[in-house]
């Protein structure tokens, strides 16, 4: 049984939670409300007239095939990033968990990329893959592959996925290593005595036991890919070529601040917000069922 703490004064508990509530109200609820209100308006590009149009912005979006292209592109991008960064991080964490000498060194090195700002990370990759002076482009060239993400949409998508994944591997790695180290060593030894080799131990003991962490990371990674990759895409491709790397947040930005369609942009933000909420609910409903927290 949890012990309930009783405060004598009735205002103290409210005062204690007030700062958090206030921050949520001012920085989340208010802008979100503004955005929803804005999504019902059409404003001319110079801000002289505003018209309340109910759902016209939404009907326009939902009948626009270009918008759906962006939705599918975003899903492809997000799940690629989440899948790649999780599996590579899992692989690396599995290796680091097994080595004894120098584990600290590897761990530290693998965590560093997380300390790099998204825009800088994007810049690093843009330089390495630059079609005219990139070091990796030169290498690919020697294999006969003429890399040019400024012209080729597929290559541009690959590049932003690589950059976004590289950035996220560290974060996933950190959590997965911690989860693996929390598994008692005797469990692994018991499995070894029971006759399981390293691969089978990983599959039948370690993997199921780090599932709760894995699930948490899946949610975090998908949200990361949806929103926080803006900086990387902005630097690497600017959404191009021919919108080949334009994901939903990027479209909301470019339609609103470049195209000056504030109402349409607000409608996109609202849909995006609802979308991510739904996605998270689905993940909790269906994926979490496979997770065993009992350990």
């Amino acid at each position, binding site marked *: 049984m949890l012990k309930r703490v009783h405060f004598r004064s009735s205002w103290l508990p409210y005062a204690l939670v007030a700062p958090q509530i206030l921050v949520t109200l001012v920085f989340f609820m208010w802008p979100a409300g503004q955005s929803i209100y804005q999504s019902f308006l059409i404003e001319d590009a110079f801000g002289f007239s505003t018209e309340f149009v109910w759902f016209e912005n939404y009907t326009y979006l939902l009948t626009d095939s270009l918008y759906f292209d962006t939705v599918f592109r975003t899903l492809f991008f997000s799940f690629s990033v989440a899948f790649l960064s999780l599996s590579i991080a899992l692989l690396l964490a599995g290796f680091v968990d097994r080595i004894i000498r120098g584990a600290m060194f590897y761990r530290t090195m693998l965590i560093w990329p997380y300390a790099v700002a998204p825009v800088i990370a994007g810049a690093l990759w843009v330089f390495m893959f630059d079609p005219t002076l990139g070091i990796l482009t030169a290498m690919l060239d020697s294999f006969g592959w003429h890399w040019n993400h400024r012209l080729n949409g597929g290559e541009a998508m690959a590049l932003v996925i690589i950059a976004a994944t590289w950035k996220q591997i560290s974060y996933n790695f950190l959590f997965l290593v911690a989860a693996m180290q929390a598994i008692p060593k*005797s469990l692994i*030894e018991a499995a070894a*005595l029971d006759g399981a080799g390293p691969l*089978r131990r990983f599959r039948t003991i370690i993997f199921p036991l780090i599932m709760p962490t894995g699930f948490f990371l899946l949610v975090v990674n998908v949200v990361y890919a949806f929103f926080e990759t803006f900086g990387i895409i902005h630097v690497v491709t600017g959404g191009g070529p021919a919108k080949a790397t334009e994901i939903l947040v990027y479209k909301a930005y470019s339609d609103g601040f470049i195209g000056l369609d504030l109402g349409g942009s607000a409608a996109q933000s609202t849909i995006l917000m609802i979308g991510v909420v739904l996605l998270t609910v689905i993940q909790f409903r269906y994926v979490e069922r496979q997770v065993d927290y009992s350990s």
Partner: protein
Amino acid sequence: MTTLALNNVSKSYDAENVLSDVNFEVADGEMIVIVGPSGCGKSSLLRMVAGLEPITAGEVLINGQVVNKVEPKDRDIAMVFQNYALYPHMTVFANMAYGLKLRGLSVDAIKKRVTETALLLGLENLLERKPAALSGGQRQRVAMGRAIVRKPAIFLFDEPLSNLDAKLRVRMRLEIKALQQRLGVTSLYVTHDQVEAMTLADRLIILNDGAIEQIDTPMKVYQRPASTYVAGFIGTPPMNLLKCRVVSSNKNEVSVVHHEGATFRLPGGRVAKASSDEVTVGIRPDHLVISEGNQAKLQCAVQAIETLGSETLVHGRIAETPEDSAPFIVKLDGNTLPRIGEVLPLSYEMDALHLFDGNTGLRLASS
């Protein structure tokens, strides 16, 4: 038929020597208990037999075959861990079936074996539960079941009872003993609890600071401890050990030794074997009695009393021992309740005295 032997086994971590030159053999079906304080290297020893820890020097032999380089899974060994090491995401059934599945048994055979073992241990109603839903004693039993179900050649126990409460520990101790005798599996059992060691062992190994002090049956170890270390470790309350100086030494008759004013008389032959005139005399608290009349050989000033019902433990000082020295312990029957400050006249049989060399700490036997 399985025998286990260790030949000159040593273990060191970096420069630190944990075990040096360990030699012993375990006969088929024998239960050997390794006992020692924490940090004496007993767990390392067990883990080397299991193959979980590399062997620095020497050989481990199973059935006469050197297994130093054999993988744990190929040694046909099962181990019960101190924290049980049950797979938390698997049911009791799956926990026990895991090792069988890996050995490629058919589904039916696995089911049969697990059910048999569960019946043996009284786990038949818990097979669908996860470890988190079990009590400490039940978990312990599942850990045993997981070891038994594979029918291994050797059982290893790494302090399996130390996470249980005192009452349950006594019960599980008896169960383990009965089970081991029934299955007749060669076993190695590690513990720091000397009562557990005494009750379970066919033979005891007393380990101190990485070296074996004595290997013998529990009774022999109790009656004839090989060193002051063993004497102080085995038996509750521990043996009284008194540093003495030889006063008069006579080869054939009786030698006299002194301890801060107290005098002990011993057969001459034993004292003569000492490397100097420094010796340690030991006497068990159980072997002291309150003497009638003027037959008293020792005077003990009572400082504290512990009443245990069936017996009374007296902590006191004999003769002119300094205040801060270890108390002299006397075990009296439960009805005798001396007062604090009282001086008890005590006597003992000469045979009850143990004699150890003052420098090496080793037992000095009579001839």
